[in-house]
């Protein structure tokens, strides 16, 4: 396990020193994170890295995962789609399964959560847990990782009833925050620069990965890394590739992703992508296992351009990962991508497959610009979206929740 001091080489000593200072008043505090999957997706990835580092900084930090059945995950996937704006009708039976699953998990988790000083509940899946802890000792925070800027109102109204009693909520962007009767903190997520997904790789490893997937090093490569989810618009990426290929005949496309255990729609979307690709030998659809972090790292590094053509996106950690590797990103003009992709500086924001194709052609014809964007991109991530900043913001919030609601707290 890496210690927090390992990060000083990347962030600078000043950042680590500051983190230790903020952690001082929180020493020994029991913090529990709760989410619905240990494997797959951005939340699980963040928690895998954040929990040990919070422990290293002197807090007693734990991570609990909700156990649910197929009905539960079908319901929560429906929530996810509805929060991102899709009009989803959820039958009473699914809502019942959702509430029942939370009631059962509350009993299993009672010893861990009842006396915790801080409980951080991630996303809607475990949101009703709070109602089962009327004698809770600590502060409970709901962390929303989803683009909730325009939720489908009937579903949001249902979920809201589980959220109002939380002491605070956390949102990735101000645009996402929905009115709730408690302070709504804004904390973007982060990547771990020392994880297998983001650590520097030897050229040999990149070359081997390229050979394994039979990618031609002499021809340009564009890549989208993401779960096979309609909001990530993988079919739109294939369309963009086709349009761009008319002008760059050697263009190759990689669409790589895995599934998350809490996402029951992945297979259907994957089939749609296969159909759209129509056996084009230059479209490489890679269904990767959940632990293929170094493979993803290598794919991002060997790409000329990384795409994230989402139509809705909570934050888009794959964008952050690509920027960290100095790759320009062509991203959907939505959610957290807007915070990361700065037009003409770190990449381009687009709204259509046509737009993505246009920017792909433009960048492939301006190689010097791509290099310049890449170095700006890496610096931007270093300054703003690394795990150390994320932990510092959580600590700050914990201090503020313990110290009342003054605009300024002097420790």
């Amino acid at each position, binding site marked *: 396990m890496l210690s927090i001091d390992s990060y000083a080489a990347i962030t600078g*000593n*000043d*950042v680590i*020193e*500051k983190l230790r*200072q*903020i952690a*001082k008043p929180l020493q020994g505090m029991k913090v529990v994170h709760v989410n619905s999957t240990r494997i797959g997706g951005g939340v699980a990835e963040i928690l895998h890295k954040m929990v040990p580092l919070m422990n290293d900084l002197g807090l007693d930090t734990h991570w609990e995962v909700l156990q649910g059945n197929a009905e539960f995950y079908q319901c929560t996937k429906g929530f996810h789609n509805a929060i991102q704006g899709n009009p989803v009708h959820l039958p009473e039976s699914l809502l019942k399964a959702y509430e029942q699953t939370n009631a059962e998990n509350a009993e299993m988790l009672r010893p861990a959560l009842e006396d915790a000083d801080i409980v951080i509940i991630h996303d809607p899946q475990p949101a009703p847990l709070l109602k089962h802890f009327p004698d809770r000792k600590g502060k409970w925070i709901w962390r929303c990782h989803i683009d909730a*800027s325009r939720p489908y109102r009937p579903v949001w109204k249902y979920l809201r009833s589980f959220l109002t009693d939380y002491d605070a909520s956390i*949102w990735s962007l*101000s*645009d996402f*925050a929905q*009115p709730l009767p408690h*302070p*709504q*903190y*804004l*904390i*973007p997520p982060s990547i771990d620069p020392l994880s297998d997904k983001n650590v520097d790789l030897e050229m040999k490893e990149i070359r081997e990965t390229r050979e394994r997937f039979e990618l031609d090093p002499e021809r340009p490569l564009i890549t989208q890394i993401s779960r096979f989810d309609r909001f990530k618009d993988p079919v739109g990426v294939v369309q963009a590739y086709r349009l761009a290929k008319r002008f760059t005949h050697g263009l190759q496309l990689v669409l790589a992703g895995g599934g998350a255990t809490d996402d029951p729609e992945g297979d259907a979307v994957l089939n749609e992508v296969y159909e759209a690709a129509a056996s084009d030998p230059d479209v490489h659809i890679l269904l990767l296992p959940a632990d293929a972090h170094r493979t993803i790292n290598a794919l991002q590094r060997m790409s000329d351009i990384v795409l994230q053509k989402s139509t809705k996106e909570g934050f888009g950690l794959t964008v952050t990962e690509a920027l960290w590797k100095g790759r320009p990103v062509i991203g959907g003009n939505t959610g957290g991508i807007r*915070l990361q992709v*700065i037009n003409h*500086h*770190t990449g381009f924001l687009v709204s259509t497959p046509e737009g993505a194709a246009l920017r792909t052609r433009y960048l492939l014809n301006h190689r010097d610009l791509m290099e310049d964007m890449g170095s*700006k991109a890496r610096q*931007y991530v270093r*300054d*703003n*979206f690394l795990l150390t900043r994320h932990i*510092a*913001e959580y*600590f*700050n*919030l914990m*201090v*503020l929740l313990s110290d009342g*609601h*003054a*605009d*300024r*707290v*002097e*420790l």
Partner: protein
Amino acid sequence: MTHTTQGIPFTFKDCSLSAIATGRTAQNLRELRDHLQSVEEGSVYYHFWGGRLRPQFDDPEFNNDFAAWCKHSLRDDVIAERLSVIDPMHFPSLDALRNEVIDMIEERLSERELIPWTVNQDQFSFIRSQIVVFETPRQISVAEELAAVIPQISTSSVYYHFIDARRRTDDGRDDFSNWLNGLEGDFSSVIADLADVDPYFVTLSDLRNQLAKVFSGHFSDTSSAGRV
């Protein structure tokens, strides 16, 4: 009145800022004015200063979020340029600063036939902030040590002592100038050079570099980097 700081070490503090959504949004210039009339003072603070500690790209083009939004979302260059010349240091309180912004917007509203507006996803979101301030173990006793210490402090510590201080102190100056001013000896040329550092149009890292340059230009290098 000059307070003596002779014999009092300079203790470096640091700060960490949390941003909080207020739930208020504006889609046009009139809504911006209406919200400004009643939004918390902490929000005015955030949009002039606090945002410097939040994710932002490269060099800020404007020194406050209101001007930037008017330029990039409302595409009204006139009000953007007028708002951009507001120097928040010249106002005795956040309320006075708020009133100045409101006056400028009202003037612009009276000039325009149509109210400038923007699309839904480019609305102005009013954010307020809470700051946690804490002491660091770093202290210096003599002015010369500033040259060695400044490159080592965090960017948020730079923010606290050089930007936030202007709101905290009676004379609206930074903490370094105030401390130097109270020491025995003549530090007026250093203080004058510090006054020439414009903190609004550079990143905090660049600001740290500029301050380091000022101090290293005046003080010979010291081997000590502050007591820790």
